[in-house]
């Protein structure tokens, strides 16, 4: 492999020059201007980031570059020049020679972007052979080398495997190998890490950055995550409603955004590098992007913009406002800065509760700002040695119970001890023994009344299973679940049913979790009827309106169907449904991970406000550590079905004791280019081992730099190392 690293400092000719690109979808409902006059250039070896929420046109832009779009999408005007050649004027055969050779692309979902019935070898080799650069034998040898370069262990074996034999992260490495196989001058990566865990995301991003440096490959990285862009890209485009609204160096855009939309994106995400107690403030712009069929004639962001002025009814141009920094905003073009007016009365009084609430835009769609300050530290965590109990191999053994002499603190709302759930896999053969997925393997968990416990871990660590066990959607194999003093681990459905009133769940996917054939009113009144909480039609109507009001939806929208609402609004309906029966405890399983960052902030703010107003207790499951730290009082870190660490959120992130926690925190990208570049990242190698045959002793030992013989022999106990800070590690805090 030849490495051609062009000098980064020297002004390099543009590899790609796009000007006034317009891509439109000719749908039955009308013309959608998905990409509406986008211009940019990518220099040789440069890494450009394109950010924006879903529907902003960033992916359509990427696919337009290679002319991969199919009917009803058409590139109606504009110019795309790649290495001086006009892409839009190319014949199909010229285009084919360009694709995969000069310009390559990596897509978002590694699970679907490889052909399931073909071996990796064939998919990798055909890319090289299609462009006639290599014969089959040499292409195969190169393929093995490439897979090795992409960080796949035993590439000789991997190349003869099928895609289903790989994890998502591994498949994305294969996709990268395919993309890089002809050493393209430009690699377009469309949300390449969105479907991956944070530790794997960090690995893939680092790989991309190495490829950029080593091969001098220019990269266009498309992402909704500013943190992902920050580490890799030198320049950033921010897209909104089909237009570029801001363009500049990554440092400038992320630290001093000059368009209100970029400003909102930067401020909507909780960040690990900011102290949560000192003015922790999430800003959510209310409303949703404009209807792509009828965009407002003026500034497209104006209807949601907190900085809106009169002139915004005219459409602004993208103009230079500083060296290399362009913005499409009348306000910043006039030299004004984007500072939130300090008019919002931010409550800081602890009397008012821990969550001070500013104006929450009561009508979604109307330009309002939600600012939220979490002023006082979370509720005191029991100061005494709150016994968590050692994880037992025989979880029915409850002998540790006597250890925790509880001072007069409120009794826990939920107490889980030694919970175990193994799922049987289908047998391989008639006489083969059953194999089990050790999904949850002896988990202890305490949730006190009114607190929020965050549950984090990589996919497959058992967090969703744990949630389902607590709600008794699954029946645990063993262990105990005490909810409000009732033992429900093995209780019969009839016994649990009345308790379900107090235990509710909010699911991840707001599209799949609402029955599309029921109106909002039917969705909300069903739990009321089931639990006999409202009987007369008038009572029900009143309660439904009240619930919609609580989640800030139009109380009159009860007759509408879920498909008439946006993703964020649907998640509000989900929350309203959970609240219908006045529960005390809500399990939220990744409630915001399917949403755009702005909508995430709205839902987080809503959940915090509801907790304050209704005294709710949350078990909040998420893979986004910054979000978990933002909302949680205490955090539980799961690894492969076992608890690795439990601590108050502040302590956990300030001084993690378990090496796994440290890696997890380090893997989270920070949306600040200068920090992200300077930051020394701890990189967790490899992927979690199979939960079918988990490692002996400490489950993390196979990836742990501290691992000693004892780690393979003795499973570490979840012991209290500091006040309220538990870790299951033989060498806690030594990393």
């Amino acid at each position, binding site marked *: 492999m030849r490495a051609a690293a062009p000098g980064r400092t020297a002004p390099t000719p543009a590899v790609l020059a796009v000007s006034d690109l317009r891509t439109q979808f000719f749908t039955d409902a009308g013309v959608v201007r998905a990409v509406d006059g986008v211009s940019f250039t990518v220099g040789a070896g440069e890494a450009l980031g394109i950010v924006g929420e879903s529907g902003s046109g960033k992916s359509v832009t990427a696919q337009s570059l*290679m002319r*991969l779009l199919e009917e009803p999408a058409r590139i109606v005007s504009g110019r795309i020049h790649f290495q001086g050649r006009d892409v839009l004027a190319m014949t199909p055969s010229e285009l*084919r*020679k*360009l*694709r*995969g*050779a000069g310009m*390559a*692309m990596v*897509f978002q*979902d590694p699970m*679907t*972007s*490889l*052909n*399931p*019935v*073909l071996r990796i070898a064939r998919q990798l080799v*055909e*890319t090289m052979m*299609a*462009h006639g650069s290599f014969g089959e034998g040499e292409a195969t040898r190169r393929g093995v080398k490439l897979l090795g370069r992409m960080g796949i262990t035993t590439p000789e074996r991997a190349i003869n495997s*099928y895609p*289903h034999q790989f994890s998502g992260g591994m498949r994305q490495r294969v*996709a990268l190998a*395919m993309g890089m196989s002809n050493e393209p001058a430009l690699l377009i990566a469309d949300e390449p890490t969105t479907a991956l865990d944070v530790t794997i995301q960090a690995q893939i991003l680092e790989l991309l950055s190495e490829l950029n440096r080593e091969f001098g490959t220019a990269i266009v990285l498309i992402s909704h995550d500013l943190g992902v862009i920050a580490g890799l890209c030198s320049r950033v485009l921010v897209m909104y409603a089909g237009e570029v609204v801001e363009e500049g160096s990554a440092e400038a855009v992320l630290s001093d955004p000059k368009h209100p939309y970029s400003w909102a994106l930067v401020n909507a995400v909780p960040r690990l590098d900011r102290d949560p107690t000192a003015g922790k403030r999430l800003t959510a712009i209310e409303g949703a992007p404009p209807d792509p069929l009828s965009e407002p004639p003026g500034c497209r962001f104006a209807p949601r913009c907190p900085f809106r002025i009169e002139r915004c009814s005219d459409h602004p141009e993208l103009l230079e406002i500083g060296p290399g920094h362009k913005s499409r905003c009348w306000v910043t073009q006039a030299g004004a800065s984007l500072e939130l007016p300090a008019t919002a009365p931010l409550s800081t009084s602890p009397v008012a509760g821990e969550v001070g609430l500013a104006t929450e835009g009561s009508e979604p769609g109307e330009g309002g700002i939600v600012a939220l300050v979490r002023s006082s530290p979370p509720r005191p965590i029991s100061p005494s040695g709150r016994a968590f109990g050692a994880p037992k191999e025989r979880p029915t053994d409850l002998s540790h119970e006597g250890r925790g002499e509880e001072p007069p603190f409120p009794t826990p709302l939920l107490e889980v001890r030694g919970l175990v759930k193994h799922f049987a896999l289908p047998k*391989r*053969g*008639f006489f083969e023994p059953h194999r089990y997925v050790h999904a949850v393997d002896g988990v202890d968990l305490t949730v006190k009344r009114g607190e929020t416990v965050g549950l984090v871990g990589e996919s497959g660590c058992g967090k969703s299973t744990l949630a389902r066990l607590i709600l008794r959607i699954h029946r645990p194999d063993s262990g105990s679940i005490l909810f409000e003093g009732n033992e429900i681990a093995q209780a019969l459905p009839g016994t649990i049913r009345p308790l379900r009133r107090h235990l509710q769940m909010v699911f991840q996917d707001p599209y799949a979790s609402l029955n599309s054939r029921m109106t909002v009113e039917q969705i909300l009144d069903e739990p009321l009827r089931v639990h006999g909480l409202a009987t007369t039609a008038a009572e029900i109507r009143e309660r439904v309106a009240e619930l919609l009001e609580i989640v800030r939806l139009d109380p009159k929208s009860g007759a509408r169907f879920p498909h008439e609402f946006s993703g964020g609004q649907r998640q509000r309906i989900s929350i309203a449904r959970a609240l219908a029966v006045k529960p005390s405890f809500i399990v939220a399983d990744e409630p915001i991970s399917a949403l755009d960052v702005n909508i995430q902030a709205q839902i987080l703010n809503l959940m915090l406000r509801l907790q304050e107003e209704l005294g709710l207790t949350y078990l909040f499951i998420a893979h986004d550590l910054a979000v978990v730290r933002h909302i949680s009082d205490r955090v539980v870190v799961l690894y492969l079905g076992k608890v690795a660490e439990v601590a108050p959120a502040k302590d956990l992130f300030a001084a993690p004791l378990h090496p796994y926690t440290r890696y997890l925190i380090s893997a989270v990208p920070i949306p600040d280019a200068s920090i992200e570049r300077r930051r020394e990242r701890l990189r967790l190698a490899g992927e979690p081992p199979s939960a079918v045959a988990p490692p002996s002793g400490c489950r993390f030992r196979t990836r742990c730099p501290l691992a000693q013989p004892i780690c393979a022999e003795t499973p570490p106990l979840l012991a209290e190392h500091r006040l309220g800070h538990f870790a299951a590690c033989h060498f806690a805090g030594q990393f």
Partner: protein
Amino acid sequence: MPRYIVSRLAVTAVMALLATLVIFLIANMVPGDPILAQLGDVAASNKAFVAEWRAKWGLDLPLWERYLIFLKGVLHGDLGTSIASQRPVLEDIAQYAPATIELATVGFLLSLLIGVPLGMLAAIKRDSWVDHVARAVSLIGVSSPTFWLAFIMLALFYGGLQIAPGPGRLDPIAFSPPTVTGLFLVDSLLAGDVSTFRDAAAHLILPSIVLAAATLGLITRTTRASMLDNLHQDYVRVARAKGLRERRIVNGHVLPNALIPIVALGGLAYANLLTGAVMTETVFSWPGLGRYTFRSAEALDFPAIMGITLVVALTYLIINLVIDLSYAILDPRVAR
């Protein structure tokens, strides 16, 4: 993979055993006493005589013992003696089966060779005239009643235009080729008799088209849907982004995936053709299993009916086995 094959074989064997049990039980639980039917009123009133008869036919034995005897017979290729023809049932079936196998196979190949390419083209050139033709073919194929189609074809091509031969496997004056497989197309070629081969092939045209019509419609439609489904998968976009030729994308990437449901449907359709050709065989005077089944049912020839039922069951089981095994070849995710 070997483990998968063994497990499929084992399942098929168990299913075959169950099939014999079900067939035996149904035959033995049909109301009506075979003794009464065979002996008539006078003899049936003689207790000693009846007992002797029962002992002779083994009807005094317990049910499970009778099943074992039946099963032993089946395993030795003894399906009993047909009441109507007074010949061993297996011999009857062996005589009628080749005609059906020949007809069904030609019909099946016809529907496959036309249906799959037509469905593929229809999907690739969606909403073009090919697509419309494909839609018309599948609609007509699926919705035309067999007897109606058979009569129309005969009336048009044999009676009217006189370009196709009439019913039967060969011209009435022609001689069958020496029997090796019983398939006239094969036997005539083995004997080097080209004119008989032509005659047999010509006689196959109309009945095989009639028989294949519905299957052709189903296969065209399934191929089209399955291709469309796969043409919009992410991996196709990836293949395009790699700069592959469109031909290679369709044949190398889309088709292997699209074939998976077609194999399942095709296999079952073939089993259907093999076992359900009664109507076509009757109209075309085709001396096949369908007509034998029909006659046996008419004559309440229980040994023959049981024999045919068993053959039908085994046909389905074997074809299912073949489907399962080809799944394992087509889709690496099946046999891990």
